[in-house]
């Protein structure tokens, strides 16, 4: 600054203030005290999926038009995308950050789209090795079949024992066909069988065989579900015309003839109650005279506490099912051994009980009578663990009606695992899938003689193929809303109500009666494009554009690799020789895929 520069000619004089030497010598990275890092974080949908699906991953693949890859990404974790895309209560949507700008992504319907769109294709996954250790699975519901699937994928020979003549457990006999067409379930079961899984039907544990008959098997997974319907415990319950909800659904699903009277009362507020009510509406209907019977649900709490899926309740109401809230039966009125009606009492809600819901209390003097030819109690199911009551089977501990398991799904007896509704309190297909998968991973470890450690608590998902991402959950406040516009959620179309309720068909139902009709490709694309890709780098180049030091370089050129959603730091490179640590990239990143780490640990 003080040195005198004399220019020999005027042409030597610089005309602009510019350094003649390169500025690369000035490694401004030395100024940095924070460092940006590309770290994919967990979107709320992924976190909340009980089956452990990489939802953000397959939404990105739908956007790219890569439907088979999207479907196979689900199949890494869950062999039932077609089932779950229809019957899951989609907890993934409840914390979706898109809620703030036009409604949660219709993840549920997109999952179904992937399954339906690839219906003619088969998964390309195959077991890469073969083990000798045989595994027995008791119950072919979602937990049992998910466990079988994941074990078969790992190369184990698996035999599934099913009590009923049909395969699928509650998916087959507990869910009405208007929600889950049989061919969808059969297609997904066939994919599991294609891996070499043997399924033996009409094999009821306790009746047809005992656990001690399974000595040839090196591990056993018990997933028998909940088979006993809870009793109302009111007088008249054993009269003719009373049929438990699950029993009704099972008989309809097995193709048995079921008759209901012109006045039907369903008791309960869960999915079985709603399914039974809607089935009763269809059973009592005549093609020429739809909704010729009257179906009423009695629920002892209010709509807010009703545990059934909200959309299913809406659909039931739209179809003509009536709901009486804050009502409970105290007696079934009978004549000549046949039910004629109910004596009910009105309820009010008191203090919250141990479930967190307000406890219903009868209002004295509020009794009233209701006419009913058919009464369908659907107040919940219980495990039937009577098969554990003899011999060494007693070593398997039962607590509060459920088989007790640890975080690995292991029972108190080595080599015996349990899952699904008989062991966990969640009651959805997705949870059962997660539970079966957990046991499969644990059985694999057990058979290799490894410690059964490292499993997350039973209410968190496990992953068959771990997705490399930070467990921190991305919330709306972590995103940069400047990049996102409000766009309305797309809803799937539904079959017109008159068509839905005009008679119950046992055959050709999939073509005829499914209520929800799913997305076409255009709707699926539009809906997937609404995804924020929370916590997931999708090569949007915002960091690169904003970096004032030109210190970010893109490593991946379009077309993006598959799956796009899991770049996790492989998309860009920060040149730390020059990155000053200004943090603009992390601040500007629309989706919180960049983290900031302190460069210097300050010492006192």
């Amino acid at each position, binding site marked *: *600054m*003080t040195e005198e*520069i004399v220019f020999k000619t005027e042409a030597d*004089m*610089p*005309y602009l*203030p510019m350094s003649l030497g*390169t500025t690369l010598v000035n490694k401004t990275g030395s100024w940095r005290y924070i460092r940006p890092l590309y770290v994919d974080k967990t979107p709320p949908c992924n976190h909340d999926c009980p089956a452990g699906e990489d939802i953000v991953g397959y939404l990105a693949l739908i956007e790219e038009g890569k439907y088979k890859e999207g479907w196979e990404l689900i199949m890494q974790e869950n062999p039932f995308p077609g089932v779950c895309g229809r019957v899951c209560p989609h907890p993934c949507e409840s914390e979706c950050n898109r809620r703030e700008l036009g409604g949660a992504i219709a993840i549920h319907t997109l999952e179904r789209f992937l399954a339906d769109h690839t219906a003619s294709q088969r998964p390309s996954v195959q077991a890469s090795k073969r083990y000798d250790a045989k595994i027995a699975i008791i119950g072919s519901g979602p937990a049992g079949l998910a466990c079988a699937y994941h074990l078969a994928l790992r190369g184990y020979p698996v035999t599934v024992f099913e009590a009923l003549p049909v395969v699928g457990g509650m998916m087959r006999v507990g869910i009405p066909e208007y929600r889950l067409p049989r061919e969808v379930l059969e297609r997904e079961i066939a994919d599991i069988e294609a891996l070499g899984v043997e399924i033996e039907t009409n094999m009821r544990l306790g009746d047809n065989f005992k656990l001690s008959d399974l000595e040839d098997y090196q591990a056993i997974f018990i997933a028998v579900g909940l088979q006993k319907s809870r009793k109302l415990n009111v007088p008249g319950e054993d009269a003719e015309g009373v049929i438990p909800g699950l029993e009704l659904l099972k008989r309809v699903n097995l193709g048995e003839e079921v008759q209901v009277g012109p006045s039907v009362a369903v008791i309960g507020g869960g999915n079985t109650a709603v399914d039974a009510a809607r089935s009763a509406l269809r059973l009592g209907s005549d093609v020429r005279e739809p909704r010729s019977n009257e179906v009423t649900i009695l629920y002892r709490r209010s709509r807010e506490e009703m545990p059934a899926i909200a959309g299913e309740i809406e659909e039931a109401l739209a179809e003509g099912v009536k709901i009486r809230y804050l009502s409970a039966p105290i007696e079934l009125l009978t004549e000549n051994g046949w039910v004629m009606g109910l004596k009910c009492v009105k309820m009010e809600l008191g203090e919250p009980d141990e479930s967190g819901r307000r406890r219903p209390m009868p209002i004295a003097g509020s009794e009233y009578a209701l006419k009913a030819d058919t009464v369908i109690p659907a107040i919940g199911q219980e495990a039937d663990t009577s098969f554990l009551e003899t011999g060494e089977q007693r070593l398997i501990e039962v607590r509060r009606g459920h088989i007790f398991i640890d975080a690995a799904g292991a029972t108190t007896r080595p080599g015996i695992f349990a899952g699904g509704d008989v062991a966990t309190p969640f009651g959805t297909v997705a949870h059962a899938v997660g539970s079966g998968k957990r046991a499969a991973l644990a059985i694999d470890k057990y058979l290799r003689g490894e410690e059964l450690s490292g499993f997350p608590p039973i209410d968190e998902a496990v992953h068959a193929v771990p997705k490399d991402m930070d467990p921190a959950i991305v919330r709306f406040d972590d995103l940069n809303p400047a990049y996102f516009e409000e766009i309305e959620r797309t809803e799937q179309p539904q079959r017109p109500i008159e068509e839905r309720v005009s008679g119950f068909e046992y055959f050709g139902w999939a073509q005829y009666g499914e209520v929800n009709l799913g997305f076409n490709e255009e709707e699926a694309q539009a809906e997937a494009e609404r995804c924020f890709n929370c916590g997931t780098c999708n090569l949007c180049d915002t960091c690169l554009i904003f970096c004032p030091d030109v210190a970010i370089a893109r490593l991946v050129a379009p077309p993006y690799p598959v799956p796009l959603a899991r770049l996790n730091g492989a998309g860009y490179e920060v040149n730390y020789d020059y990155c000053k640590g200004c943090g603009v990239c992390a601040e500007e990143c629309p989706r919180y895929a960049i983290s900031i780490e302190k460069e210097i640990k300050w010492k006192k």
Partner: protein
Amino acid sequence: MEKVIMGNHAVSYGAKLARAQVIAAYPITPQTQIVEMLSEFWAEGLLDAKFIKVESEHSAMAACIGASSAGARAFTATSGHGLALMHEMLHWAAGARLPIVMANVNRAMGPGWSIWTEQTDSLAQRDTGWLQFYCESNQEVLDSVIQAFKIAEQVLLPTMLVLDAFVLSHTQEPVDIPDQELVDRYLPPYDARYKLDPGDPHAFGAMVAPPHYMELRYKIQKAMEEAVEVARQADGEFREIFGRSYGLVEKYRLEDAEVVLVASATITSTARVVVDELREEGYKVGLLKVRMFRPFPTKDVREALAGARKVAVIDRNISFGHGGIFAEEIKSALYNGSHRPPIFGFIIGLGGRDVTPASIRGIAEYTFEHDTPEMEIIWREVKNS
């Protein structure tokens, strides 16, 4: 191809033909149509450029500075208050020696709030180091945009071309839109000598201490001086290719003229008609149009006024506390010369008030009737009686 278009669209066509690569602008009446049409050109695929939407004129110029620093041909347009907001960045563009081209639609400054024409907005930027050209017709506007890039990129100084609000900006005139091929022949792609390049990074715009700062300013003035001849040559080359030219100044019927009217922009067209009428009536009157204001063409002005007995400068602008800005510039240009006629400084038409043939005739008659100006500023048509 001849088209009937408004002045604003003449600017747009000029920028398109000049193949501007980066356009950053903020809308302001009466300039908005310029960038609207450019964005339409872009949308239709007729213009291969980056169009940057910005939140203010200050940012518009900053974006042009960034683009030009990176070696791109940058263009913007503004008016009145928008230009005032750019002021800081105008100094930067010149100091960094960036050949940015800007169209400014003259608009009177508020308050009293106005959208109509007056030259004070652009003349107030005369010391920022920008070349300035004042245009008279839509054809001249289009041609001047193309010439502006040619000149700016040789002397490495930013260039502003100026057109009157509404009188030109929104007035339709037949305009010959030259073939792209010819424009490409006239204006080769901009090849920046130094530019921001991540592959060969240098520091630009660093602090310069007293031992060296003055030399940078000296170089800007040298470039300005050089620009007079560069502009003359660019205008000449333009004539060779397109058959039209405008000169730095235009001398109209100055032979034996005793009174010479000096005007700029659209007032020139009106004055030309009045000169013809007065000539027919026997008055020895002529007209000097000043097209280039910065650098000021002192030599050309001295030559043009060498025979004038009296000079009447018509200013649609005012430097408060002194007078009409063109009048001051003319006085200053003649003072060190050999011929120093009396100079009458008229101020008229501020805030877009019409300057009619009668207004100009009145100015000429006043000048013929008086040997010397009675006052430094002669206000015309002020409603004070």
